[in-house]
């Protein structure tokens, strides 16, 4: 996985609450058994004029310059709620998003972000709205910085806003770690647990299929 340390970029305000993963990538845009080729379907219901069409809706923020080049999204509470589809994160990543700043996230979406190199930054609503106002004045000039090393968002007006991320998530993003490889370092403990557990809860351990 690609590492994330710090990023200064154009931020796009999409200040709706409860943006669900069906909105981020509609079911009809998930056409193949693949993590790729999904960016075209990103926000398809809002981004295009009609269902199934590819004619852009000029009012949608990510269709407008310079937001077409945004790497950071600003949004309302509960961003990424709903379906567990990791396709939402794959689509955002392929489109170019590397950080989402919102007051809260859907839990599964948040976990999916850190496994795919996107930083889910939690900041309170007032701060997100203040960032949005600054950005809107001059989106190109008023860029936002997400510094994962210091866990700090730096607003265009140079104020810093600290944020928190679980330690393991932060390390995974900073180092671009493969979580399976990390866990398998504890394999002896996993196997020992299983052997102890087998006598404690034998009904859990189903016979191997023939």
């Amino acid at each position: 996985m690609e590492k994330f340390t710090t990023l200064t970029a154009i931020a796009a305000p999409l200040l709706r609450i409860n943006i669900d993963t069906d909105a981020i990538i509609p079911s009809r845009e998930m056409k193949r058994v693949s993590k790729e080729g999904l960016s075209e379907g990103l926000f398809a219901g809002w981004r295009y004029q009609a269902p199934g069409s590819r004619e852009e809706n000029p009012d949608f923020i990510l269709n407008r310059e310079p937001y077409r080049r945004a790497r950071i999204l600003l949004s309302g509470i509960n961003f990424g709620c709903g379906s567990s589809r990791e396709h939402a994160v794959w689509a955002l990543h392929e489109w170019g998003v590397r950080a989402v700043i919102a007051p809260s996230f859907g839990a599964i979406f948040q976990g999916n972000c850190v496994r795919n190199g996107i930083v889910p930054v939690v900041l309170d609503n007032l701060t997100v709205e203040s960032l949005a106002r600054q950005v809107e004045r001059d989106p190109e000039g008023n860029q936002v910085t997400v510094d994962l090393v210091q866990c700090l968002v730096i607003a265009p007006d140079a104020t810093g806003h600290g944020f928190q991320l679980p330690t393991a998530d932060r390390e995974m993003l900073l180092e671009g770690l493969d979580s399976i490889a990390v866990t398998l370092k504890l394999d002896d403990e996993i196997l020992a647990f299983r052997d102890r557990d087998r006598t404690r809860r034998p009904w859990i351990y189903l016979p191997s299929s023939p």
Partner: protein
Amino acid sequence: MGRTILDKLWAEHTVAELGDATSLLYIDRIFLHERTGSVALKGLEAAGRRVRHPEQVFCTMDHIVDTTAGRTDDTRMPGGRDFITSTRASARAAGITLFDLGDDRQGIVHVVSPEQGIALPGVTLVCPDSHTCTLGGLGALAWGIGSTEGEHALATKTLAVRKPKSMRIRFEGALPPRVYAKDLILHLISRFGASGGAGYAIEFAGSAVRALPVEARLTLCNMAVEFGAWTGIVAPDELTFDYVRGRPFAPGPDQWEQAVAHWRTLPSDPDAVFDWELEVDCSQLAPQITWGTSPQQGTGIDARVPDPATETDANRRQSAERALQYMGLRPGIPLAGLPISAAFIGSCTNSRLSDLREAAGVLRGRHVASGVRAICVPGSSLVKKAAEAEGLDQVFRDAGFEWRESGCSMCFYAGGESFGLEERVVTSTNRNFENRQGPRTRSHLASPATVAASAIAGALADVRELPPRV
């Protein structure tokens, strides 16, 4: 200090403490389906990794499969066939148990899982699907994950998880007639918001929950994710044990006593302390209906469409305004009486035998209003068979409902079928998001009984005004 059921299950499954309140948890059961499971299995294959303990991993075909009679691997969704064949090939190669098309055990993952005794009290169970929290209804610690986490669980039999906070919600009082678990959870979400449970594992308790049959508890926990919770759980009790006994993957007679003795130790201790507690009085509750595009935008069927102007929070106001526009509604109009063009009974929320019985009770001897398309999709092939054995299929058909093969179907679009542009649909599913059931489709969430009553009326209807027929 006493421990909550979450504390107990957490401790019992902890392989290692990873610091920062994070534990490496042992995962007892993994379930996959052809839409997100296929990607996980393929990802694992591509990385050259193997499924550890394939005998504890299960897979079903539900999301993309066609639900019309005589179905094959072909779907109406372009490319759908590949999801099915790829899943089948990967599942075979990995040696996991697959409930394929044509197998009686096939069905919606969260319906099959309890039906087969795969979900049990006290197990940890994950699935790359957000409604995995359904299984909390049996007293399982079950939650939805992404596909990458799915690969991790398959390869290591564990997941690193930060312990959520604990909340207990007591539903007290007797449910009025024609008010169901679906109404309880819709009411909870409309009252406390779609992120009211964010960061929490929620124990549903109280006299109303104790009185709920197991299938209704599954409905209750199903929508914990619409409440923003990490998961929901109901402590297992005698009803749970009776439900589980004798199911194919449940403990057999030689292990039964030991398992039940263990399960009896799981409920929260009387002096357990929760991070948050709520109490909800159910005795006056009306059947619920949503009016917007978030599950929190709901109210009683006897209410009117609320006026966004009365909303003090600016974000909520804007979201309500957008929702009303999308739904084609004006503030102040009564919800009951709003004409519908379709009615849907199905989904992991409300497609079990008890749901079909309740709906059939309303439909018996009546007919769907003209111009309304009505569809019933049983949650599993076994539910379908059981319903047919007691003649429910005939009740549905006589009333003018389509009677389908099992699957997720028009709960969402992935099967390639959807409701029409700006059609108003009353639905027993769990998500009223924009475009969820079709392009610009307007979904109103409700219980199966309310869906049935509305189908007959041709408009959103108060099921309490329609006496059941036997």
